[in-house]
């Protein structure tokens, strides 16, 4: 790639022709001031801060938009360049408030930084500063547009990265204003990145407002564990509390972006519903007790029951260490009753669909088939990579129960109720196999094929770099295994890669430590079998279990002893549990997340656990010790992680048969808003107040509504009904922030 030589400030440096001067300078560590340039956004060249002197040019040239050419001689800080930079600085400051001490960006403001370099020249401007009225833009971002320097980074971010054109630059001249059309609030699930790209204090974090000054905080490297990417973040802490979360660059994981969920979920840490003290239930009454007492109560309850009657259920968002220790404890006790798949209609022992593509690989696909997924909200950063591919011309087709709002054009979409997805995919597979002149397995022989299936198959086989993505909504599907199997076959027949996003969070850690039954009972079976002792690791059945009412009922049996390691208190858990062991939440414990690429990312605790709560790995270790189980003499979570990572999963997987299954006439697809997807986000107030977070509707078609005798505005499983034709016949699509109801 290195093919030209230029000179910057007397240093000979290398670049490729056409590359901008600023990008070469950045790589070489030569500092050129800039405001509008951002390496991930298109060039705007509007701030004029990066003006440099290029020999042979009478006028100074912007380093961000001037392509380097061989032999070019650039001066970034000779008199001419400095004069231009200083001029621009002066213009920027004439209308900018000079009250950095009260600005939330103070101390981390690019304008302030550059201004300092140019000395505190008293401006000769005294014509009165411009004041700009603010339009609110929602619960997450605080605007202070008088501070805006019109660099349009936020506008370009919206158009180019978020893919939802919301912010614009309206008016002209001095009246130029950065604003959205309406102040209903920004819709993007990536909106918080605008805070990071804004060089000044015009866009700041709303929940963070007035909390502390930036320089008072310390930054700790961490990893977000809400989704399959494990975006890299810095947690910024003050006096033992997480005050803000910002993106940490990691090109192969999250580039420089993070989702709003990753950015704002920390707010839940300070929520009043945190579980802060150990408790035991005595004669139906909760008593706050010491850790010793609570642990004592826990082990005596567990010991009272046989190993076969013991089961462990864990959250998909738990750390690798927690999952490892809990499965080890369970297995050492002699039980194989383990599961994290609480929301899966039909958890089985089939092996999970493999992911065969990398995150950066997604950017290079030319076709993506997305099945059972509102990928944009489920896996924002994965979706972002696919969006990047679409910007290079990739086509996207979908097989979904509902027509979702993607931030790219969907070339073709098939609406398919969950119970029909097997049929839909079978058709696609049949076309593919026939066009490959491959033999048809028996189950495809009678399959009828329609145009939509042919179109999808053709698009896939035409693609050189296809990918098939399977999303979260498949978990509602009783035929999930068949769907996964068909996805695998379709990918094979079309030479496409696969991406399994059917379970989120730290699911791959659960896979890694085989946190599922090897001959024992799965989540559903555990309830059916009326076990007598349960350990719940950050599980909230009202939200997490596919049949929440049944789960709660079962756990509430008199002969069910339940130890709940919870980071939050929850009414239903309080009703059925016998012991509450308060659990350190995200960022309060060290841990490890395994992402979609099977990369294990470990992090240390950013802050001390709230109240008397303790990191899960420590609690589980002590529990195991007290139960006198061998092999738990860990002193550090990294030892746990080492053991966990050295495991190779060795579960016997069952073969999946694709046979006609008995399917319901009408199925429900239940999807949480991304801000109700785990317990921490559910307790982040700001996320709940966003447009995305407030959705709660059960969408159903006119015809299906008739069969179910539903009318507009009725409630379906507690969720208001909305009748329209965006949804497949034969299903109700529930998108909600509410706990599950029957």
């Amino acid at each position, binding site marked *: 790639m290195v093919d030209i030589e230029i000179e910057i400030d007397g240093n000979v440096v290398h670049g490729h022709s056409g590359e901008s001067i600023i990008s070469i300078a950045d790589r070489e560590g030569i500092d050129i001031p800039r405001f509008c340039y951002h390496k991930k956004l298109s060039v705007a060249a509007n701030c004029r801060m990066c003006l440099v002197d290029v020999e042979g040019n009478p006028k100074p040239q912007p380093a961000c938009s001037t392509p380097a050419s061989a032999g070019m001689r650039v001066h970034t800080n000779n008199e001419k360049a400095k004069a231009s930079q200083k001029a621009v600085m002066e213009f920027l400051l004439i209308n900018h408030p000079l009250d950095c001490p009260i600005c939330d960006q103070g101390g981390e403001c690019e304008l302030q930084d550059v201004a300092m370099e140019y000395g505190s020249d008293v401006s000769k401007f005294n014509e009165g500063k411009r004041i700009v009225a603010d339009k609110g833009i929602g619960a997450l971002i605080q605007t202070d547009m008088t501070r805006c320097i019109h660099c349009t980074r936020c506008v370009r971010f919206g158009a180019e990265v978020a893919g939802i*054109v*919301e*912010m*614009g*630059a*309206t*008016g*002209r001249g001095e009246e130029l204003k950065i604003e*959205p*059309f*309406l102040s209903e609030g920004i819709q993007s699930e990536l909106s918080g990145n605008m805070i990071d790209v804004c060089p000044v204090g015009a866009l700041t974090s709303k929940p963070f407002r007035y909390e502390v000054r930036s320089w008072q905080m310390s930054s700790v490297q961490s990893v977000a564990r809400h989704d399959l990417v494990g975006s890299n973040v810095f947690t910024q802490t003050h006096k033992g509390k997480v005050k803000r979360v910002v993106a940490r660059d990691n090109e192969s994981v999250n580039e420089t972006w993070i989702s709003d969920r990753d950015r704002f979920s920390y707010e839940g840490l300070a929520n009043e519903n945190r579980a802060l003290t150990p408790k035991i239930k005595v004669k139906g009454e909760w008593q706050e007790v010491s850790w010793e007492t609570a642990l004592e109560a826990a082990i005596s309850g567990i010991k009272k029951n046989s190993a076969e009657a013991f089961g462990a259920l864990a959250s998909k968002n738990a750390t690798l260490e927690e999952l490892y220790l809990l499965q080890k404890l369970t297995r050492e006790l002699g039980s194989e009753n383990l599961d994290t798949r609480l929301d899966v209609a039909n958890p089985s022992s089939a092996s999970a669909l493999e992911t065969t593509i990398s995150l950066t690989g997604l950017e290079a696909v030319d076709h993506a088939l997305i099945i059972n997924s509102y990928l944009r909200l489920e896996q924002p950063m994965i979706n972002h990579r696919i969006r990047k591919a679409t910007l290079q011309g990739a086509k996207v087709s979908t097989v979904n129960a509902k027509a979702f709002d993607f931030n790219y054009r969907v070339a073709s979409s098939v609406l398919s109720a969950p119970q029909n997805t097997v049929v839909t995919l079978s058709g696609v597979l049949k076309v593919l196999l026939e066009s490959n002149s491959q033999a048809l397995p028996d189950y495809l022989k009678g399959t009828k094929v329609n145009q939509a299936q042919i179109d999808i198959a053709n698009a896939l086989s035409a693609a050189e770099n296809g990918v098939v993505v399977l999303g979260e909504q498949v978990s509602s599907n009783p035929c999930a295994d068949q769907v996964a199997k068909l996805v695998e076959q379709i990918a094979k027949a079309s030479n496409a890669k696969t991406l399994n996003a059917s379970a989120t969070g730290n699911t791959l850690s659960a896979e890694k430590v085989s946190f599922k039954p090897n001959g024992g009972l799965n989540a559903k079976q555990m309830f059916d079998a009326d076990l007598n002792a349960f350990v719940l690791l950050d599980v909230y059945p009202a939200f997490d279990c596919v049949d929440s009412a049944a789960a709660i009922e079962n756990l509430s049996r008199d002969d069910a002893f339940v130890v709940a390691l919870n980071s939050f208190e929850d009414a239903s858990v309080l009703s059925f549990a016998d012991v509450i062991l308060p659990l350190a939440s995200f960022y309060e414990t060290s841990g490890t997340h395994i992402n979609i690429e099977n990369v294990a990312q470990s992090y240390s605790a950013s802050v001390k656990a709230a109240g008397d709560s303790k990191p899960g790995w420590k609690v589980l270790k002590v529990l195991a010790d007290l139960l006198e189980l061998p092999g738990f003499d860990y002193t550090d979570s990294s030892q746990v992680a080492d053991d966990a990572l050295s495991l190779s999963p060795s579960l016997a997987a069952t073969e999946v048969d694709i046979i006609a299954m008995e399917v319901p006439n009408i199925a429900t697809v239940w999807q949480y808003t991304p801000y109700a997807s785990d317990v921490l986000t559910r307790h982040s107030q700001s996320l709940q107040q966003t447009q995305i977070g407030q959705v709660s509707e059960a969408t159903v078609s006119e015809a299906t509504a008739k069969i179910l005798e539903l009318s507009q505005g009725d409630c379906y499983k507690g969720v208001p009904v909305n009748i329209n034709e965006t949804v497949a016949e034969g299903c109700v699509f529930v998108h909600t922030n509410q706990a599950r109801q029957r």
Partner: protein
Amino acid sequence: MISEQAKQQIDTWVAKYPAGYQSSAVMEALKIVQAENDGSLTSELIQAVADYLEMPVISAHEVATFYENYNHKPVGKHVIRFCHNISCMLNGADDLISYLETKTGVKTGEVSEDGLVSVKKVECLGACVGAPMFQIGDQYYENLTPQKIDEILDGLQ
């Protein structure tokens, strides 16, 4: 929100641009819609135009606020757009604007009580050899004098 007739007019503009570039017609579309709504735009109308041309509404809003020919407040039935730039100024535009203001009782930027006229000072209209001049609707009126202004005002209804 947009009449059928207006849609047809918009479509003739859309036809001038390559397929997929229908938003090239947004400037005319906004003018057409403005014309059939008493000469000014509202958020709802901008939204309707954006929807009709399948473009982000903020982009249509950017256009509507960038160009001077769009109004976001009610205007008179006739908008008198008086050039006050250099050639017109050298030929007495300022005095004539004052004359017009006194005559109509309407200050620049305002609408007459009966809603018949509003007066706006604008930049050079490209008819400087006819200075001083103003524009009403499609029509330019050049080499203005107080007498000429009287006649023109008398003709407005």
